[in-house]
């Protein structure tokens, strides 16, 4: 399980979002509503019916104009975490045992799904600690939440344990799944943890669906060390674990360089698509410890504050 030191550090953080959301209940997030909190937001001219207590008398004394102070309304935030549980997120053979206890750096290389689960635990804890409404959806259709408050963290842990041992999607249509996630969901922060491998439709239609639904997209592109830096050489026949397609290759250093260049272009392409939708993109190496990614990398990137 998560250590106390990790949890204590997470309790001081909350997931940052550029947009202000209209919340459902009072919370710790700024809302698009102007409210009565202590956070000053703006002035506007006094109109009859306004509460006279909100008139800024200092401005009135200086300019002889009655203006009303507007304050931020703090409400809760909807946080969605979408986890790709397709076969490509698992090593072969799968599944791996759920990491118990929480692995230390260098212990072993978790699968992309394991890494995604760990990241979900950490991000979910931060969201629950901040009073946000947390929803976790798996590509297999199982979901958690929306739940609010740290009391739900134990339930989240059990949910993820059960998810880890469940059968993954043999073949996932990424766009269709993301589109289904937007139906009936309250717009908010949306973390997508996936390797984005969908040869048939690609990842762009899914991004468009999330953006159209008003989600503040956060893409955690999870790739394994083997995908980031393949250790292949010679004459091999690659078999796609999802589609079963094979590809014969004679791999040499020049081909590996071409692969790395193409991977970088692909990553840049996704990042650009995210930025154009006011979203954010972060490439995750599943071989890295999850707590380091969250507490160091994502925090440094401004994903948590």
């Amino acid at each position, binding site marked *: 399980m998560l250590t106390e030191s990790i949890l204590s550090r997470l309790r001081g953080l909350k997931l940052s979002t550029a947009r202000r959301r209209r919340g459902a209940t009072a919370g710790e997030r700024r809302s698009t509503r102007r409210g009565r909190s202590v956070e000053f937001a703006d002035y506007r001219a006094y109109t009859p019916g306004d509460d006279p207590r909100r008139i800024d008398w200092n401005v009135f004394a200086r300019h002889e104009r009655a203006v009303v102070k507007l304050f931020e309304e703090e409400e809760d935030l909807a946080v969605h975490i979408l986890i790709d549980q397709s*076969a*490509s*997120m698992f090593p*072969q053979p799968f599944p791996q045992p759920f990491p118990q206890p929480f692995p230390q750096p260098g212990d072993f290389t978790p699968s*992309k799904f394991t890494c995604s689960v760990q990241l979900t635990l950490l991000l979910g804890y931060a969201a629950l600690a901040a009073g946000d409404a947390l929803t976790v959806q798996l590509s297999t259709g199982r979901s958690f939440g929306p739940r609010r408050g740290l009391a739900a963290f134990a339930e989240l842990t059990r949910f993820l344990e059960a998810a880890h041992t469940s059968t993954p999607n043999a073949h996932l249509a990424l766009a269709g799944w993301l589109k289904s996630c937007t139906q009936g969901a309250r717009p908010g922060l949306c973390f997508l943890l996936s*390797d984005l*491998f969908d*040869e048939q439709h690609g990842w762009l239609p899914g991004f468009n669906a999330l953006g159209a639904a008003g989600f503040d997209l956060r893409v955690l592109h999870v790739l*394994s060390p*083997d*995908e980031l830096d393949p250790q*292949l050489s*010679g*004459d*091999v*026949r*690659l*078999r*796609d*674990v*999802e*589609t079963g*397609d*094979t*590809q*014969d*290759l*004679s791999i*040499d250093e*020049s*081909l590996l360089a*071409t*692969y790395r260049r*193409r*991977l970088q272009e*692909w990553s840049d392409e996704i990042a650009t698509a995210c930025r154009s939708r006011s979203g954010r993109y972060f490439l995750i190496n599943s071989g890295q410890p999850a707590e380091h990614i969250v507490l160091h990398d994502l925090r440094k990137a401004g994903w948590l504050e």
Partner: protein
Amino acid sequence: MSWLDPAALAFALLAIPILLLYLLRMQRREHPITSTLLWRQVLPDREANTLWQRLRRNLLLFLQLAALAALVFALTRPFVLTTPSLRGSLIVLLDASASMRATDVAPSRFDAARTQVREIISHMSASDRMQLVLVDDAPHALTALTDDRVALITALDQAIAGVRAARWVQAVSLAGAAATAENVRDATIVVVSDGANLDVPAFAALRTPVQFLPVGVSSDNLAVTTLRLRRRTRDIAAFVRVTNFGAQEQRARLTLAVDDARSDMRDLIVAAGASTEFTVDGLPLDTLSVHAHLDAAEGNALAEDDDAYAVAAVRERRRTVLVGSSNRFLEQALTALPGWDVTRAATPPDAQQPFDLYVLDGFTASVPSGAGALIIGVAPNFAPTSCFTDTRFLRADAHPVLEAVDWRPVAVQGAQRFDTPPWLQPVLLSEGGPLLYAGVDAEQRRIMLLPFSLNRSDLPLQIAFPILVANAAEWLAPAQGLDLPADVQPGEVVPLPANARVEMPDGAQRSAGPSGFAETMQPGMYLVHAGAVNSAFAVNFTDDGESALTPSGPLTLGTAGAAGSSGAETAGRAEIWPWLAVAALLLLTIEWWMI
């Protein structure tokens, strides 16, 4: 290049497992992967490199096979013959026979030999000396034993190859004597030759080390080895033989020219080591000369034997008259003589139409001046003194009429003894007295006298009889034309009358010397004008030994007792396997680097 251990080529079979391993290596191992999406996307980039990828894989195989080839080649221990570093006193026998004119090594074997000798000269130290001997039909010492390189090079540059076979016996004797002279030390005899007609046994008696430097690489050569003309009643027939001395079948075109006008042309296919022969009929009777020329696009390294010349012999007819003979054998013997017209007469003919030869069998008649007479049985002008019957053969003089005549089995019943003048001398004696007289009288009449009747002897039944008649006819009435040999080898002396004018094949005019004509180095037709007589002879290069160009390769000459002989031979061999081993290592390094 030669090999010391060609059996090592069997190691080349190792290429088979290499190829098998290469094919097995091409079986790909399957590798499960989360997605082939990105790998498919790199394929377009890879397409441009596909050819290089294939080449690179093939290049590895090629490098492995090349390394194996280099190793196998090294194991065969190949070597090249090099000019060894020779020291001391060198007697260089430079082969200048006709075969050295072959062009299988450019520009010719002789030039290649001169290059080798020049190389030796360039490596001579100050204490080394050399004598150059050109070996043609006789050895010619081009220089004395000297350390003067300039003189040696100059003599070498002036040397030319001849058109005759080399005579090695004399050359070896000369070299042996030069090598064992008192002031000569550390002598080595160096033979630079193609080995054609090389008289290897002649070197056996040498006590001096012998170094043989071979030249020549190929035996391919076609030659006109025979051209003969036969005069027949109505025409002249030419017999031609073309020989292929090489190891491969060759095609050639033969042109026959009669008195410089093309008469016949035919394409020939001559099998390796075989000859093809044919006869061309219908040549005109007034033909003077025939020239056969061979054209071959390839496989003909020696040009000197591609031409052959022949002269149609002009035989003058001589006339003889047989007077009073009733002996059938005598008449047949005379009739069988080639070039003779025989006339029978019961009485001696008048002197208006003199005959060349008068055969008087039991007849007395006067013989014209300058004619010859064979008198049998009677001697009109010489009185018989007695008869004798003891006719057992005693001895015979070395007279032309008795050449090849075996008289011993001849039996004569009885003969007469004559009182002959001094110019008529007995040339054959029996126990009882002379059986044959011969001589030339004051009027240049050649007389031969048989003092017995043929009917009282078995001489006509003996094998000696036609020979005796033929000899007698030639001696009593010799041909008036020039007696030229039918076939003359280059350099051969032709017996011609002194001051006879000779027109050379190149058109130059020469005069014969007192002992004949010796300037016969040019193959071709030589026209002779001796007084009123015009004739011709042909000089041909027809020496099968020289036309057979098969190079001998390395030879060990001399005797085992000649210290250093074998060592000197080994010194001329440079093995190149270390270079091949280095090349194999280099190839393997490159192959390892490319994997």
